[in-house]
């Protein structure tokens, strides 16, 4: 049960948020030009890292905004929070 610092609302309990999985997976601009394997890479493959992971979170019971979180999955420590479209404040 961690605390997330929503970039729009401030610190809130984890129960107000929902996780959206790995961040910075860009939806291909021209999906029709992709092979099955390339499309499958986008569609199915996720890293699920033990350690520093870049994730998407949604303040679903708050402002309903999506944003990015840098979280260490081994101890839930959150190292950074930043808005969609912004560059990660920590090197990926």
């Amino acid at each position, binding site marked *: 049960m961690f605390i997330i610092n929503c970039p729009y609302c401030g610190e809130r309990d984890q129960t107000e948020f929902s996780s959206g999985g790995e961040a910075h997976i860009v939806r291909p601009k021209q999906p029709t030009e992709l092979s099955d394997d390339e*499309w499958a890479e986008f569609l199915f493959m996720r890293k699920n890292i033990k350690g520093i992971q870049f994730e998407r979170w949604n303040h679903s019971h708050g402002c309903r*905004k999506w944003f990015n979180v840098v979280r260490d999955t081994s101890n839930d420590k959150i190292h950074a929070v930043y808005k*969609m479209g912004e560059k990660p404040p920590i090197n990926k």
Partner: protein
Amino acid sequence: MTQELRINNNKFIDQTTRLSFKFNGEKLYGYKGDTLASALLANNIHLVGRSFKYHRPRGIMTCGSEEPNAIVQIGNDPSLTDPNVRATEIELYEGLEAFSQNCWPNVKFDIGGINNLLSPLLPAGFYYKTFMWPASFWEKYEFFIRHSAGLGKSPTKPDPDIYDHKHYHCDVLVVGGGISGIMAAKLSAENNKDTLLLDDKNTLGGTTIYQNNDCFKIDDNHTNYWLEKEIKNIKNIKNLTIKTRTSLAAYHGYNYLLAKENITDHLSPDERKDKIRQRLWKIRAKKVIIATGSIERPLIFNNNDRPGIMLSSAIKKFIDFYGVKTGREISLFTNNDSVYETAISLKKSGVNIISIIDIRDKSSSKIVEEVEKHNIKIYWNHTIVNTEGYRRISFIEIMKLSDDGSGVIGKKIKLKTDCLGISGGWTPMVHLFTQSGGKLKFRSDDNVFLPDKNKTPSDQISIGSCNGDFDIKDIILNSNKDVKTFLGIENSSFDNLKVESSKEKMKRNIWLLPSDKPIGKTKPFLDFQNDSTAKDVKLALREGFKSIEHVKRYTTTGMGTDQGKLSNMHALGIIAETTGTNMGELGTTTFRPPYTPLTFGAIVGRNVGEFFDHTRKTAMHNWHVQNKAKFENVGQWKRAWYYPKNGETMFEAVQRESKAARESVGILDASTLGKIDIQGTDASEFLNRVYTNAWSKLAIGKCRYGLMLNEDGMVYDDGVTTRLGENHYIMTTTTGGAANVLTKLEDYLQTEWPELDVYLTTVTDHFSTISICGPNSKKILSKVIPDLDLSDEKFPHMSFKNSIINRIKCRVMRISFTGEHSYEINIQSNYAKNVWELCMDAGKNYNITPYGTETMHLLRAEKGFIITGQDTDGTMTPSDLQMDWIIGKKKFDFIGKRSLYRSDTIRDDRKQLVGLLTDDPNEILEEGAQIVEKLNQKPVEMLGHVTSSYFSPNLNKSIALAVMKSGKKLKGKKFFVPMENKNINVTVTDTVFFDKENKRLNA
């Protein structure tokens, strides 16, 4: 009543308030301040239960939450009885009734005791080895195991008690109100930190509060005197909240902790009325100070489990705190100095001490000298090799230890004793620390696992004996220093305390004490609650188990309700010793929350019954209730299911409603459908991307059905969307999918297509929807809204009009989910019930029939319309549903488009939607039933299953939708639906059963 085991003039026990209670039916007395355990001991009752496997008599062993034996059932009221309560924790109240749990027919004569005689046949893994074969015997085994399992009985009726939840935020949380906790709380609160101090006992002070030994002094006074003064002081500090009878159950990340406050469990039933029983505290603390103390370890020797054998520290607490002598001729057995404190307490109260058996060569500490002055016989370098006494210990047999401690030598000495205090040293209570993610380190001097300062999650510290300080001097010095650093405090009122102490830290550790008998002939118990012995652990190791987690599960050591609080260290020690491993490398098993068991009541709090989840009701809900509707839950919504008349069954009601809707007119409350208002200059482009079909060319005032996919190409949701203006749409979603669809659309807008100018607003609750369908629907609507031109030219199917009913604006759509000519009125919810009644009034002469969700499902099935979530399950593409017509092949892209021609989604043997007709038109298939081609095949190949099935009153036969492998190619083919007692013959058909030409839409 005489209580000759009771000492007078005890300040913790109120001897003026006598309380009566019952144990196993026998009426007994105790005093206010007693626990059930102390009251039983005052009545000379040690035997309280039987052991789990061998049914050996077991007695009260401890005075706290680590108690493995004295576990009782409180009360026998079917709704209030409480199982698995530790007698050492439950406070005595007038009328308390307790029962031993693990004995049948009673605690003194126990039939399961036969297991004790059979014990050579009950080794480690016994249950795994024996009860696994033959499998057909399992039912008999289960009966046997359940009857002798020894866990309490659950209440059989609903719990009438009230439970509460409380959210709490503080600067500093101090867990444990012993001497170090009191110091920490005072320092914190005095330095302007909002502080919460919790303790699971009813009084503060831990073990120091009854410590009045001359060898231990603070500022020249007994330690208890000093502490009492401090406790009095802290009660007046403003920003300090103190909660007693509150046990910390769980310590999660980010300093989120759960604690259970017992509010009425110590009160008599009369005093409990209308009060909250327990409160679960959900605490978020900026900093946490753990001061949970330590518990004494037993010693592991032959027959160490007889009633009357107790932890030495428990004997001391019973005499000093509760004023109860646990025996008349007490012996003490130790590997460290602790029992000498007990000896002095006993001596002060005039209890006869037979002897002290110490496995060490000697100890020259002040306290030992003090004991020696009293002429108590100390057997140095001796061990107990056996004990006697069935229901209560009567004799101990002792022998001299060999030099290396692995055997015994010399002559056996037999000593008469009725109570034996044992001490194997102390184990820091690190459960909460490890729950929070902290890692332990091993200190080999005294064999303890301690919080590793370098592997402690931030914003917490452990102080006192849970941090490995067992001497009062170390505790005070280090607690003061550590708390100051942790909270950034410069000066403390504890800086110049003068502390005197005596203890010799030396300890001789032998995990499994030797006997004169071979180990196979002995019973050295390790886990008293689960009845596993040191032998079992050794056997597990011989059989090849190496990991501590595996040994634990195989022998069940440490798997009882006490989570092995007393047994874990010895199990580890014996494994390390036997395998020649270093204990520190072996590591411990995982401690999981809760630290002590929690009631379900405390966990759920007030979220029971109607408060379990939100209930959403439509604006017309009361009308449905008044008209005797049966309701079904759809997500959180209560939806009218059907409206039975004159004792109709559900089947009869649905048949009547379905017929009426097609023959004249039906009316449905469709308000629960999700409604999303979409606005913005890119609204059309947005719809193009989220739906499979094309939207740019939809004219203003027109409606269109849309199918929404997941990126994997599978159908996700569907509904009709209406273009209200150039840049304005209203989308409807399924009832259950409304919230998820909005979230998904927001996700794409915010993260993938932020360049689109689109705004989404949920208006599900703001508008209510009344659907009127059937050949007479037009007549009804023309009465309700006379000004509206309802001609097919002006108001064709799939179009919309703004209108006004009684000065209230509304939107009317001509759309149909039944295949009938029908309209939907969308109106601001406050007016919806009124409009519904207007419609009912207008339809009086046309037999207007309200219908519920069941009839709606039947009518749409007649038309072969799918329900997402019923006919789809997240594995169906539009093509699988035979809905290829809805895919905008010319569109550049939409969510899921690329997935529609992945190698897997274009397989032609995918499961596809078909219609099914039973050969016997009166036979109705069961939804979920499997469809097969051959009956005598093994294994039978299952080709698909029925997704929707009804008896259609309009076709006078049963109809069904199903998904079948290669279903598109199977039209006209015959299959079987095998049921328990028969095989039903079916034929695959088209999915549309009724009005295939869609003539009725414009009828």
